[in-house]
């Protein structure tokens, strides 16, 4: 559903040009689960931001072929999106999960989870129930986020990222803040839930163990992406 072609991204810092991403090619099909590893500063987050249309590459294209949206039969290049289109894209096609600050702390867990669904107007209670069951957070739905542990919070964040049924979930070190036991557990849940819902997952991680849970493992080094 997404095809990255010859992506190039660089930053100029103090007159020097640093190429972060160099000639990246990657195809993401519906339901794929992909992990991206790499050293700190290698450009993993940058790549993810490009996928979320948060940032623009210097050159190259990201073609979107939305199997869910019947009105768009042709491929769209998300790097050419206007801000409005990018907003629409994030609203309907993408779920985003960060390392921290994934929840709004003045509303309950349930309200947090429902928010993206309500924004897009795709509220399906059965689907949400399924999500809650899969992630094992049913007993927490009326609590406030700061009454949950870190692991529970990230599980809620996964539910929030998936509640509007996006075809693609992007996660930037979703378990980076958790201890390794919790990290393994939450990552397992993440991968399993995506599989169950047939959502494509692109996850950035530092942990080899977590990366092994996904179908494909990629490694980003010196601007180029290689599969391992």
């Amino acid at each position, binding site marked *: 559903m997404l095809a990255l072609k010859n992506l190039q991204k660089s930053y100029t810092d103090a007159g020097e040009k640093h190429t972060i991403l160099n000639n990246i090619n990657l195809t993401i099909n519906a339901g794929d689960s992909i992990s991206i590893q790499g050293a700190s500063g290698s450009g993993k*987050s940058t790549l993810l*931001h490009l996928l*979320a249309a*948060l*940032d623009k590459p210097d050159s190259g294209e990201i073609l979107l072929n939305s199997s869910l949206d019947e009105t768009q039969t042709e491929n769209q290049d998300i790097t050419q999106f206007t*801000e*409005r289109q990018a*907003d*629409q*894209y*994030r*609203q*309907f096609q*993408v779920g*985003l999960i*960060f*390392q*921290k*600050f*994934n*929840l*709004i*702390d*003045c*509303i309950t867990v349930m*309200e947090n989870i*429902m*928010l*993206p669904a*309500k*924004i*897009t107007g795709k509220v399906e209670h059965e689907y949400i129930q399924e999500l809650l069951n899969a992630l094992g957070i049913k007993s927490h739905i009326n609590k406030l986020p*700061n009454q949950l542990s870190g692991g529970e919070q990230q599980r809620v964040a996964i539910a929030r990222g998936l509640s509007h049924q996006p075809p693609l979930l992007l996660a*930037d070190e979703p378990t980076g803040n958790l201890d390794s036991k919790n990290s393994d557990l939450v990552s397992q849940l993440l991968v399993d839930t995506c599989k169950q819902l047939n959502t494509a997952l692109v996850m950035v991680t530092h942990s080899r163990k977590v990366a092994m849970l996904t179908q494909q493992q990629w490694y980003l080094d010196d601007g180029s992406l290689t599969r391992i």
Partner: protein
Amino acid sequence: MLMASLIIAAAGLSAVLVINSSAKQSYSSEQQFLVPNVTQTITSNSSNLKLTKQDYSVLRVKGFSQLIAVAQTKQHIYTNNQAATQASETTKVTQRRIDFTGIDTFSLLSLPDFLNPVALSEQSNVAAKTISSASDDSNQLIRQLGFGEPIAILHPQLLEQLLGQLPDQQLEPFTTEAGTPLPKFNTFESAALGNDIIMDIADLYRLYPNAELSMLLVVGELSKAKQDRLQESLPNHLQLTNAKGAEQDSELTSSFHLNLMAMALLMFVVCLFIVVNAVNLLLNSRLSWLKICRQLGISRLQLFVVQLLEIILLTLLASFIGVVLGIELAKLASPTVQATLENLYSVEVGFGKVSIIGLLIQVSGISLVGSICATFIPLNKLNHQLAQTKDVPLSLVQQRFWKRIIWLSFVVFAAAAYIILNHAQALWLLLIATALVILSGCSLLLANYPGMLALIQRFIPARFPLLQVSSKQSLALSGKTKIACCAFFIAATSNIGMNLMVDSFRGATVGWLEQRLVADYYIYHNGEPNLSDLAKDTGVNVKQRLENTIPFQGKQVQQFSYPTGELYQQAMAFYDKSKDENLWSEFALGKGVLVNQQFAFGFDYKINDVVELPHPATGEISSYKILGIIYDFGSPYKQVLMPLEMFDLSKSTCCMYAVQGAESNIDLLREKMLTAGLDPEGKLLKTEELLAISMQAFDDTFIITDGLNVVTLLVAALSLACAIIVLMNDVRPQNMLIRSMGVSALKTQLLALFQYLLLCFVALIFATPFGILLSWVLINDINYQAFSWTYPLIISPMKILQIYATSLLVVTVVIIIPIIRAGRRPLIEDIRWVN
């Protein structure tokens, strides 16, 4: 930001202090009379029979050598045109007329006592010491006037002002309009001079032959016998009053000072709010740096002390700059302030002696205390933040505890305000009660924010999930912006209160004037010829208003005539009246009188009480029943109305005529007036014109109130903006999250705006009843106590809605800048910042 707000606070405070002190000094100086030991004054009590030179000489010939004449005239000062060769070509130097006062120094110096002031003041034993230095000053002054070449004495600051208005520096530049040079100017630093230029009476008459005698001063105590003899020798139109009996005036002054002080305090408090926020901002930006300091092993106490020291230094610096600015501001503002004050309170503002050092100590002391208090809250918070690594939300028990405290303070404030309002008479207590009312409103608002916001949330349809979230976020915000919300609440309350008051006053005045002014035309004319005689065979109905001034319980009271005709009966606007059907017939028969509120409240009379008053024609004292209490807005005088028929034209003054008749007949009157040498255009005023003139004067006066309102609102909004800037970092992750869900930047900006406006809206809702209460207190307690008159409170929903709109608009304008700035940032920056 911190500096700016401190400077503004100090400048405002010192400006008000300067104006205040100069007003106070010139006020007391008016009673000080320049000439020492004035015990009594003789003035004219009728407006067409003036005090004349002849009266003076007759009285002196009769042996009253202690009488000293004072003449006054208001004149512009001119200067010779340098270009022109003729001396007669002059240009005006002054923008407003200057008071010239002439004193009969020759007579004064010939008083045997005068050269020996100690002997004089022996009689007034206790006050002697305090007076002596002041009277020494004046003695010296009068000796300067009396001997040698003619001079004029004025305050150095007035001279400075005059010189400042000259086109070019000249040696002896000032002249009269005709080009006669004024006497040599000598400056003399005494507050008693006020804004006047003093010279010998002979010099004054030489320069301004039209100057009028304003009063005769009685210098030194008169023996009882002599006083009685003087009383007898006085012609009818003159009256003797005690110089120290100006009680009414001092009441007015104290209320005026309170007003100024309240203004200064309001300004200061509001600035403190800004200081709190500014300090918050400062500390917030330093938080990470301070945390590093902590990690380096510097103790919290040390950091605390360093921060406090810095703020104290800043405050001192700011108050120094503020004082300098404030004095300049006071100088700049003084012409306008003078004009307004003269209109509002008939106070003449002169030049006070301002000691910069004293002022500096005063202002910096107050600001220091203020800013330390203001700093304490954020510093304390910082202290906590540094002590803990993580923000721990208040536990439920703590929350409940705070909630109770807030409710308790509401109850305490409200009860205190209630008790004071019901029992206190002193004006300053009433003002404190007003402040307490506002404070109780603040507590009520804080206690009810959650409930109110929850209520509003229920009304947001499920279709707008973001709005629902936003309204919940505003609840969290309200906890973090308590101070700003309170500032806004105070501003809104005082805004509503003041506006309703002014509005009611305006409405009442318009209604009252429209009711009272029933005649077609009014003529303001004083003296010969009498217009009722003139109008006799024109077919125009002319009713004159005759005036006397009578003593009543030791005070001066106006005794006015009122026509008894049907039309005029309907025109009367009563505050309260006798239930008696025969009210008007009793009035017409001279059995009862109508009094204004000033009279009734001032002397504590009610309907049907009996008062002893002199007959307007014969002066015979008899009893009259109070039939009605009438509105008399804005007048400082106590007044009694009696039927026109009881008055005797030859004994009373007449300044105003009510004219009624067909337009053709009025034209006849116009012709008659012309032939009598009167200007019908200038004197004959159509009622609508009169109304327009009155309202114009009214609106001009209240521009100040409007200005003050906008300033307080702006300051409150600024404080809100400060809070927002501080909070921006707190809400950044949340905004990032919402935007990452595909909500557009514009929408998030609007949501942020919505949150703050919601907070303000709730504050406004709470401010409304308190604003109404405030205006009620202002009208029925403060105005009642200060001026002895009230008017009905008009609550106009339109006005309140208008205030809602303007305050929300002001808030929007101020907070939109930080919000837009936050919204402009690309989302990716936020995401990188957060993670």
